[in-house]
């Protein structure tokens, strides 16, 4: 008769027993994520059918089409808007995160909650709020006109400025939370040591605080840049025909033009752009789980 101990050993070394909990999740993600993603890649090399659909005839034309200045310009605009959003969020977010990290622990919790609440509020609703404020006969213009600051209503809605405001508003919490996590972990004695060594305010910031909080800064920038680059709702509601971003182009090609192969090519380039950014970050020496932890 086998002893209970040997039974346990058998259970624990049996690879099937240890792996099986992973299998349902892997199967699910394969079916509803990896296969659809590969399908995009496959269709991006196919041709457009006569009435929309897909004709399985190899063609690299779709990728050649992206180089058209019309589409390149949309890519460039998305990149610039996403980069500007990231910079503004960093500029706004760093002082806020630093302030939060310096508060008494009790108050830190309150502020985190205050940052998280808008982040949990429906994105459409938050974007709609800016439509309500920025539109021609909206609140901002009414207030400015009443104060006599302007003579005619400002046309902010449906411009790049409106899209930028909406993106910063939507993604600011993504920047603040990892920054806060990094600054809260910062060893205060190192900052004090710098003061003791007669470092100026600027050198303390540049040579001590920035290098020590760099992982948080990079994580925050990625967390803002990735969704901003692929934004759809913000440019769709706050932008107009002249502020189209890649996300809108993808939707337009699939649902309006019904050119699935070209839409797939655009999607694939977008995915590749984002993944190259993440890979660059990972290979810069930061561990993946460190990034995950700071989220």
């Amino acid at each position, binding site marked *: 008769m086998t002893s209970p101990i040997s039974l346990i050993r058998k259970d624990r070394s049996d690879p099937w027993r240890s*792996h099986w*909990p992973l299998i349902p999740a892997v199967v699910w993600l394969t079916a509803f994520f990896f296969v659809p993603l590969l399908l995009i890649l496959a269709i991006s090399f196919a041709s457009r059918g006569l009435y929309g659909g897909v004709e399985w005839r190899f063609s690299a034309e779709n990728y050649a089409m992206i180089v058209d200045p019309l589409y390149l310009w949309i890519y460039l605009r998305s990149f610039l808007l996403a980069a500007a959003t990231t910079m503004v969020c960093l500029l706004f977010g760093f002082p806020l995160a630093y302030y939060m990290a310096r508060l008494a622990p009790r108050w830190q919790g309150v502020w985190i909650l205050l940052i998280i609440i808008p982040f949990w509020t*429906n994105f459409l609703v938050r974007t709609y709020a800016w439509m*309500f404020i920025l539109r021609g006969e909206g609140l901002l213009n009414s207030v400015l006109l009443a104060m006599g600051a302007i003579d005619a209503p400002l046309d902010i809605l449906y411009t790049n400025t409106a899209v930028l405001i909406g993106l910063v*508003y939507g993604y600011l919490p993504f920047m603040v939370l990892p920054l806060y996590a990094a600054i809260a972990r910062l060893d205060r004695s190192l900052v004090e040591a710098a003061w003791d060594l007669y470092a100026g305010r600027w050198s303390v910031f540049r040579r001590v605080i920035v290098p020590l909080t760099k992982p948080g800064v990079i994580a925050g920038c990625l967390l803002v840049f*990735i969704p901003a680059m692929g934004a*759809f709702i913000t440019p769709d509601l706050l932008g107009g025909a002249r502020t189209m971003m890649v996300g809108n182009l993808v939707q337009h090609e699939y649902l309006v033009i019904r050119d699935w192969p070209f839409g797939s090519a655009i999607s694939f380039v977008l995915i590749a752009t984002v993944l190259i950014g993440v890979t660059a970050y990972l290979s810069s020496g930061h561990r993946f789980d460190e990034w995950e932890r700071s989220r």
Partner: protein
Amino acid sequence: MRRLGVLAALSMGNLAFLYVPIVVLVVFSFNASRLSAAWTGFTTDWYLQLATDASLRAAVKNSLIVAVVSTAIAAALGVAAAVGLDHPAVRRRRLIEGAMLLPLLVPEVTLGVALMLFFVTIRVPLSLVTVTLGHAAFNLPVVMVIVQARLRKMDPGLVEAAYDLGASPWQAFRRVTLPLLAPAIAGGVLMAFTISLDDFIVTFFTGGPGSTTLPLKVYSMIKSGLSPEINALSAVLVVLSMALVALAAMLQRDKTRRP
């Protein structure tokens, strides 16, 4: 100290930036005027109109069905995946983990169109079912990440002790691991539920006729022109999400009280 004063002012400015639009939205949901941004009097008419809107009720029902079912799937598979990945015998852990987190990294628009192409290609009609399958796919890694964070902090000696006392792997999981993971699972479920309720993009691409969820309804209302009903609906959603955040914060507090 003056330095902190400047920081405090900047931080308050940030907070105002985050909250003024939301407050404006809620305040103007009580404005009597249908068109102007000027205050013309207090009314609750817009809320009454929402309450009698049958299509809105249908949208809420659809949203809840999708959120409950997709969160249940994501929770079951996500918790299992986190536990499976945590086992020392798993090879190529980093690779598997990275691959499973990919749905959180690719832009949502591309996830939406990928799922749409997939369902159309295998000839599954787009409906509430396809929406739910898609939601479960992007919520699975959400639950997994949150549970993993908790597993890493857990003392492996506790499970070892259960094995030493003759527990089967299932018993060890059911009686030791699961109770210790409960707060993280609750947090993950709440997060997944909220993300599913709020999702517009994946639903937009994978939904078909009759699968209008609340965000889709809000979107079509916005697209057909600004109206105070949208303000009222927004205010309701804002209050709901605040309630969810409060619930999450309470769960968090319970976790720290646990011995």
